[in-house]
């Protein structure tokens, strides 16, 4: 029957013949073929029979058919000997191997860290199951002419969603606030989530212990595992009572109803304590149906996708009523966004209570950094490997003469690179967590290896290492492969020790390390710049205490007793991103238009204490009642409304009242990071009954000591937790500290990559000298001086370094400017001389090192060099 039919697939048959043991080949092949023809005889199509044959060939790859003859033994022993050789050679070159292993390992752990950042995003919200039908409600509002997307909606919408709008299966609400929690006599500030009672069910929040039975009915709170441990140690927290301060005057006592399992960092709802919205609304005495309240919460809906359009339309119909009664916020439209989807990037992000995926600057910075450092490490590996081959030319020649195939030489060299990669893998896995702690620890919480899917990490690293081995190992391996043994033995092979490829690699590697160094130094300069940036007021030694007005008098009196301390009161203190400021309607007498401007109501000697600088005019005079109708304005206000003309003694209307301008202050910066422009500001005088801040200045005194005294006085007079904040931390927010952190990271990376580059050029120089040992010796015999020799031998290196200096300097300048601009509104400009200096520093250091290498043979006996081999 077989004569008329197509034979089985040839490739499969070849594969079978390759693995099958010879004494059983005939019978087994016959069996497989017979099965194949039987299949065809059954009337199955050709492809089916082919697939069946392949399947059988694969299935037959078993113990009974595999050859266990000597050839396999040879293969393993061959690999064993490759391995042994690789080990021996690595041991011989411990130095460069160690540099490569650590360099590559650290670069890889940096890459793993970046991977965890991406994994953070990819696995975001994977903690919540069954979220396909859940939608977030986004409210689009307008802020200074720009549409803004907020993940919140008015509290009153809650009622509409639950009662008026059909087609919604479930509604839950979420709100997060920083609240003071009192346990016994201790106060803690915690992130408290306030959720409706159906929230735990909707998102299937797993409890470690406890239950949701009383949730929403009795005042109950739920803690996360770390917080429960912090409060109660190993004790069971159930039934314990905590006091939550919802505002200065409202507090609520609640029993612990349960403790949550660990909630991963990369989930939308990140909190420490959970309480019910019903309790919250009841305690604050808010009418949940009142559209004019300023309470906004996040809403989450569970509904059938088919209903989405209609429900959105229904929700949007509530807008006119809402906007009419609520003057605070005008909503343009509502949108339903699938819960699992990322935040749409079409509009500017506004307010939301939930955690977001990582985006923007940190991802870009760290990815760039990781790629640069990784490439440097790879180039270094390739470079040193090529350089080392030069020493092993004879070995390759002998092996090839003895019958070793080119492929085996290739495998041998790949194996050696593979060995380094393997060791680097171990280093990388061991240091990955340290790296992310070292980097992210500076910013707060670190996302560690155990927090992501480990399989993903391993696959990522293995793929990366295979890539490294191939990229870094293939070059030298191919290099070794193409040698002709006869040519090697005849010594006619000119190993172009430093060929074009090496040069390109070295220049690239150097440029990269110079770039990293420049970025590090620029960030360093920037944090200095931020430290010295003139904010228009002093931050040195100033502590701000927010205090209820009833305690103010008493407290100030006591604080004034501390030696070397000045105090002042204010209703609207400067700082904290302008959060304490209020808004006023500003109107020129000649104009009917009013403008909403930032306003600071301050006490009498506030300006002196805060050292607010005046451009012209005067401040408020102490004890002068007549100053109540006087105001100060900022320079930007003068520029905007008076076109820079004289403003002193001009009269303007503030909230409809006539006020006289008596002075012009410099512009006040209270947000270094995000302020898009200077904000026109008005400063006015206010009476003591409005004071909400006690500003304490202790210039030249140990702030810690002053703060301790303040705390003591505070606890004596005030029945609230102490919340003093040092002014310095205000304007910069976390970014002042971040700048220092980033600077540290870049400098460490610069040292690492610089070290790698220098190690790379060191081995290149060594091989270069080895290659030209005869030339050097002859030159020396003919009377060349050491200096001349160094210049001749290293000319090409110097050229390369110059090139790297220019390339790296330029790239470093441009990149650091871009990176800074991404993060800061106010930042230092990177300077050209500094960039060039960085490059020159690295170059000079390298030249110094390579000239040392050249000196070694020069100082040794010349006869040795001339005799060579």
């Amino acid at each position, binding site marked *: 029957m077989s004569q008329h039919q197509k034979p089985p697939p040839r490739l499969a048959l070849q594969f079978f013949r390759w693995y099958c043991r010879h004494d059983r080949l005939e019978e087994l092949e016959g069996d497989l073929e017979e099965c194949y023809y039987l299949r065809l005889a059954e009337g199955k199509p050709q492809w089916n029979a082919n697939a069946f044959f392949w399947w059988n060939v694969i*299935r037959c790859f078993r113990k009974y058919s595999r050859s266990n003859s000597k050839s396999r033994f040879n293969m393993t022993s061959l690999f064993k000997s490759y391995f042994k050789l690789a080990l021996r050679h690595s041991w011989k070159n411990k130095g460069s191997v160690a540099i490569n292993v650590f360099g590559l390992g650290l670069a890889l752990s940096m890459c793993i860290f970046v991977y965890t950042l991406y994994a953070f995003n990819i696995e975001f919200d994977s903690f919540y199951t069954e979220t396909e039908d859940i939608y977030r409600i986004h409210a689009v509002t307008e802020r200074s002419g720009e549409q803004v997307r907020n993940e919140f909606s008015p509290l009153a919408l809650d009622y509409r969603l639950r009662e008026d709008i059909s087609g919604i299966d479930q509604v839950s609400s979420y709100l997060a606030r920083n609240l003071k929690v009192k346990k016994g006599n201790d106060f803690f500030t915690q992130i408290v989530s306030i959720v409706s009672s159906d929230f735990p069910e909707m998102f299937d929040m797993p409890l470690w212990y406890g239950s949701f039975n009383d949730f929403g009915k009795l005042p109950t709170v739920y803690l996360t595992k770390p917080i429960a441990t912090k409060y109660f140690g190993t004790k069971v927290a159930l039934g314990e009572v905590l006091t939550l301060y919802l505002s200065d005057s409202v507090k609520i006592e609640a029993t612990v109803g349960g403790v949550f399992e660990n909630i991963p960092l990369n989930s939308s709802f990140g909190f420490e304590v959970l309480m019910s919205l019903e309790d919250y609304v009841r305690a604050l005495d808010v009418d949940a149906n009142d559209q004019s309240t300023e309470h906004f919460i996040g809403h989450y809906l569970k509904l059938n996708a088919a209903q989405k359009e209609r429900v959105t339309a229904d929700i949007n119909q509530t807008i006119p009523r809402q906007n009419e009664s609520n003057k605070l916020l005008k909503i343009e439209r509502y949108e339903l966004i699938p819960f699992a989807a990322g935040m749409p990037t079409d509009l500017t992000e506004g307010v939301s209570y939930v955690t977001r995926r990582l985006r923007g600057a940190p991802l870009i910075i760290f990815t760039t950094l990781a790629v640069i450092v990784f490439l440097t490490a790879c180039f270094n590996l390739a470079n040193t490997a090529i350089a080392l081959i030069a020493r092993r030319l004879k070995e390759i020649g002998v092996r090839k003469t003895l019958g070793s195939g080119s492929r085996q030489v290739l495998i041998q060299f790949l194996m050696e690179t593979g060995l380094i990669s393997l060791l680097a893998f171990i280093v990388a896995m061991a240091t990955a967590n340290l790296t992310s702690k070292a980097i992210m620890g500076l910013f707060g919480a670190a996302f560690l290896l155990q927090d992501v899917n480990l399989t993903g990490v391993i696959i990522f690293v293995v793929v990366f290492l295979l890539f490294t081995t191939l990229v870094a190992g293939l070059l030298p391996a191919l290099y070794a492969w193409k040698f002709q043994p006869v040519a090697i033995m005849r010594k006619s092979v000119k190993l172009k020790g430093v060929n074009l490829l090496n040069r390109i690699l070295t220049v690239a590697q150097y440029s990269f390390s110079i770039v990293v160094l420049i970025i590090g130094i620029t960030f360093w300069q920037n944090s200095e710049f931020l430290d010295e940036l003139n904010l228009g007021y002093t931050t040195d030694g100033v502590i701000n205490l927010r205090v209820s007005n009833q305690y103010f008098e008493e407290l100030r009196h006591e604080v004034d007793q501390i030696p070397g301390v000045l105090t002042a009161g204010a209703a609207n203190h400067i700082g904290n991103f302008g959060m304490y400021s209020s808004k006023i309607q500003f109107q020129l007498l000649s104009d009917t238009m009013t403008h909403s401007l930032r306003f600071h109501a301050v006490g009498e000697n506030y300006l002196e204490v805060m050292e607010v600088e005046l451009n012209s005019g005067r401040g408020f005079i102490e004890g002068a009642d007549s100053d109540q109708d006087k105001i100060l304005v900022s320079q930007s206000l003068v520029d905007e409304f008076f076109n820079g003309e004289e403003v002193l003694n001009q009269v303007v209307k503030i909230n409809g009242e006539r006020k006289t301008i008596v002075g012009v202050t410099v512009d006040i910066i209270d947000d270094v990071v995000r302020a898009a422009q200077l904000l026109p500001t008005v400063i006015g005088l206010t009476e003591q009954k409005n004071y909400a801040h006690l500003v304490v200045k202790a210039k030249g005194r140990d702030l810690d000591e002053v703060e301790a005294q303040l705390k003591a006085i505070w606890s004596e007079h005030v029945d609230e937790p102490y919340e003093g904040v040092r002014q310095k931390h205000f304007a910069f927010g976390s970014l002042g500290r971040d700048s220092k952190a980033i600077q540290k990271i870049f400098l460490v990376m610069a040292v690492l990559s610089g070290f790698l580059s220098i190690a790379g050029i060191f081995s290149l120089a060594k091989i270069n000298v080895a290659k030209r040992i005869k030339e050097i010796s002859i030159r020396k015999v003919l009377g060349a001086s050491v200096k001349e020799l160094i210049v001749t031998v290293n000319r090409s290196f110097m050229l390369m370094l110059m090139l790297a200096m220019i390339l790296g300097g330029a790239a470093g300048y441009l990149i650091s400017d871009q990176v800074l601009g991404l993060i800061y509104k106010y930042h230092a400009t990177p300077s050209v001389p500094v960039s060039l200096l960085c490059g020159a520093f690295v170059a000079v250091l390298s030249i110094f090192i390579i000239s040392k290498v050249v000196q070694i043979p020069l100082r040794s006996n010349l006869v040795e060099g001339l005799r060579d081999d």
Partner: protein
Amino acid sequence: MEKIKLGNFEELVLLLVGVLYDQAYSVNIVQEYQKQTGKKINISAIHTVLYRLEEKGFLESKMSDSTSTRGGKRKRLFYLTPYASKALDELATLREQLRFQIPKQALTWNKG
């Protein structure tokens, strides 16, 4: 009774080799197995068991004469050894003995 190490499937294959006397080679056994049990099986499973049984001494084999059907390739024919026939007998007897010791009531489904 000395201990015979024979798996369930192995026993089945032994029986099939016996049934197909003189024509017992893997492809035939596969077909016979499917015919008798109605279940499908891959040829590699049969190969594995046949070679294992040969190793254990239950089977012996020889190569057949070459025929044109398999492109001239010979096939390996398997035969039961006396050890195998003894084992099969013993197993069958044991089963039969046990089967007849089961009380009648046990075989009717007892609703009470």
